[in-house]
């Protein structure tokens, strides 16, 4: 089976029903994507498939159609994406475990709409759980990132 992650093509030999999450983490060693709940309740496993945010714990690898981008493919410490830069500027993270998913969700939102209203931010970001409670900073960082992307 072949899949493309962050622009790199990989061949994996796994069962069709193995979720994309575990193919990424355990077969390809890409660990920026996190396991939190396994049932699409927390959003920690959010990645992009052809630019759209999806919960990778809910995508059986056999059903995958499209190119996968994980947080590692969005940007790097040396070359951050606008959303990552905003997350750093606002010091959003506490434990940080949910933040890969939050950032991927926010990047997907801003790709579609670079001027979201407060209600739109609330609606789109509420599927991503943060147990530490960094929500006020997530809101602020999404707005900063939106501004950066509008001005780019």
């Amino acid at each position, binding site marked *: 089976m072949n899949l493309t992650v962050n622009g790199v093509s990989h061949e994996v030999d796994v069962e069709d029903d*193995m979720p994309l999450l575990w193919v990424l983490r355990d077969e390809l060693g890409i660990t920026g994507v996190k396991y939190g709940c396994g049932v699409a309740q927390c959003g920690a496993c959010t990645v992009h498939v052809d630019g759209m945010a999806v919960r990778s714990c809910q995508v059986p690898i056999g059903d995958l159609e499209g190119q996968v981008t994980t947080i590692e493919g969005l940007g790097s410490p040396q070359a951050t994406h606008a959303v990552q830069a905003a997350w750093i500027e606002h010091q959003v993270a506490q434990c940080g475990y949910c933040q890969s998913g939050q950032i991927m969700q926010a990047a997907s939102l801003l790709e579609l709409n670079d001027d979201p209203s407060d209600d739109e931010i609330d609606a789109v970001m509420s599927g991503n759980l943060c147990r530490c409670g960094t929500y006020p900073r997530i809101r602020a960082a999404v707005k900063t990132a939106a501004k950066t992307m509008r001005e780019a």
Partner: protein
Amino acid sequence: MGRMKTIARRTFLIGSVAVAGGVAFGTYMVKRDPANPLIDDQQAGEAVFNPWVKIDGDKITLITPHADKGQGAVSVQAALLAEELDVEFGQFDTDFGKPSKAYWNTAFGDEGAPFMSTDQSFLAETTRGIMDALVKVMGVQGTGGSSSAPDSYEKLRRAGAVARETLKMAAANKTGLSVEQLKTANGMIILPDGKTIAYTDLAVDAAQIPPITEVTLRDPSQWRLLGKPMQRLDIVAKSTGTQNYGIDAKVDGMVHAAVKLNPRQGGKLNSYDAADAKAMPGVREIVEITGGVAVIANNTWRAFQAADAIEFDWGPAPYPAEQYDHWKALASSFNDDQLDSQWRNDGDVDIALAEGRVFEAEYRSPYVAHAPLEPLNAIVLVEEAGVQVWTGHQMPRQLQLLVAGITGHEQEQVTLHNQYMGGSFGHRLEFEYVKQAAEIANAMRGTPVKLTYSREEDFAHDFPRHLSIGRGRGVSKNGKVVAMDLQIASPSVLGSQMSRAEIPVPGPDAQIATGAWNNPYDLPNYRMRAYRAPELAPVSSWRAVGAPGAGFEFDCFLDELIHEAGADPMAERIRLMNHDVSRKVLETAAEMSSWGGELAPGKGRGVAFVESFGVPVAEVVEVTATEAGIKLDKVWVACDVGRVLDPANFENLVQGGVIFGLGHAMNCEITYADGMAEQSNYHAHEGMRLYQCPQIMVKGLENGGRVRGIGEPPVPPAAPALANAIFAATGKRIRELPLSRHVDFV
């Protein structure tokens, strides 16, 4: 002397009391500092100044032994060292270091002493000193009880200063200049002519001389780093997916394990059939462990799948199977035989109750799960020569001891590579997952085994926050609250937790009623009695431990008595407050929120004050009652930690603590049916979602004197402030958590 008899409460040093058999060691033992663990691994040309700073020709390494659960402990520890060492962020590496007595927690003793934090009496201070001595002699290293900042505040600045002065001495020896002529900045010695010598170039020389231990700490007015917003050391990694947590750790040759344990916690495994599981793809072994079975496979998901395919016959739970009977056991505990401690007996409550119109109410706080987003995990490799463990844990030395007991090694042969944690909230004070990984790895010596809990297993085997019932009787007269007789019953969280850590605990458990007995109010008549219910489901320290439950019961009852008196909730709390620092906290919350102003229709405000871990915290919550339910609008928080070390992280932690407290108060509980937790994942134990999050304004005051931690104290006032706000908006008193049992939230 009643108080001296009760020298035993929460905190791990209590166990030390039992182990040491009392205060039976000499001054020598107490004065002697534990050996510097960095000397054991000292390389040629490396200077190890103390247990926290080492420098070689290439780099400066700061040891930050407090575990990082997301509270930013690594950054604040490094900042304390760097402030006096004169190095900047980016010029050093950090390391959790190896478990050592040298990292004994200098703040556990304070929390362990059975006195109100506002009590500075001779007896209180002497007892704190004894507790500190016990912690030191036993070498209790741990992260918890909001102790990282108070433990580190002076100790680490001193360690940084010792290293700096020693480096200056080494430079003086090398250059022939006097120490007074030398300055330090940016990891360098600056000579009078402006030339510089990097610290790393002085490592060899510094290693030759004994550390200069006579140092003077700088006045806070001279600080470069502390007291100003910092960029956390982990913030870039945590914003780019490059922060490795325990669950991400990789060891060559590693296999993946999943466990299935009796969901009736502590019950027996009668039998199981793993034939189907064994035949599944990637499955390598099925191993029976204490309380259940482990599947070892070549991939985490395959291990989960195979574990789900095993058929089990489980024994019954060693506690009541139905939730109703847990409450019943608490309700039956309000009797003299089960009186754990009478914490307060001010004035004469019986007379006041006899002379007034008595108001009564009962409150309940349920079991609640920790459920940090990173499920429990640990990698263990057992070999003849020793054991290696990769996991995030808050009690490194006790972990070594328990693992060694399983594998038959000596404690010192167990190496812990402590990991950044994806949250804890108290979960990683527990040892079961590490013990299970050690059992599996011991059955597969030579192969590193990574155990990962599924989320369902994590919920089923969490040891939740203890449940409690509070019963209040009180009298209000002439516009004032004049009497409160509060009784709280709960199982002992300390007893449950310490029995698993194999540490016996004598004496009462302050956490049954912390948040109720220790608030510095001066009610004319106040009696506070704590009752110990029998052990029910196993329970554990949950962020702020006793204070979220008991604080809810105390503060909501106080709010009701104030309402009975016809007084203003804020003004009456301020009037009753008997501690200047705490009164200022309440007054600040009133000022921030413009308390007493006109509110739009449907809106209501509640205030609550709870002190925990020496930190007085006041929160004002504003809600709107809408047709769709209660909407949380705004929260104002004022608290006093003595000194705010990093305003940016401080604000984040306070807001997060408030959200944690509000979210669980809104909709979280663990209930048992047929002996099993009914909640298996976040859909049934959700907490707050982003769209529900109110605006949260934070003010950190600095009048308190002692530096305190902020990880836990913002949590306890959130639930009562919300319940009080709902009453103000709707007229409905809710005396039971979670509030969603009685009201909808938008």
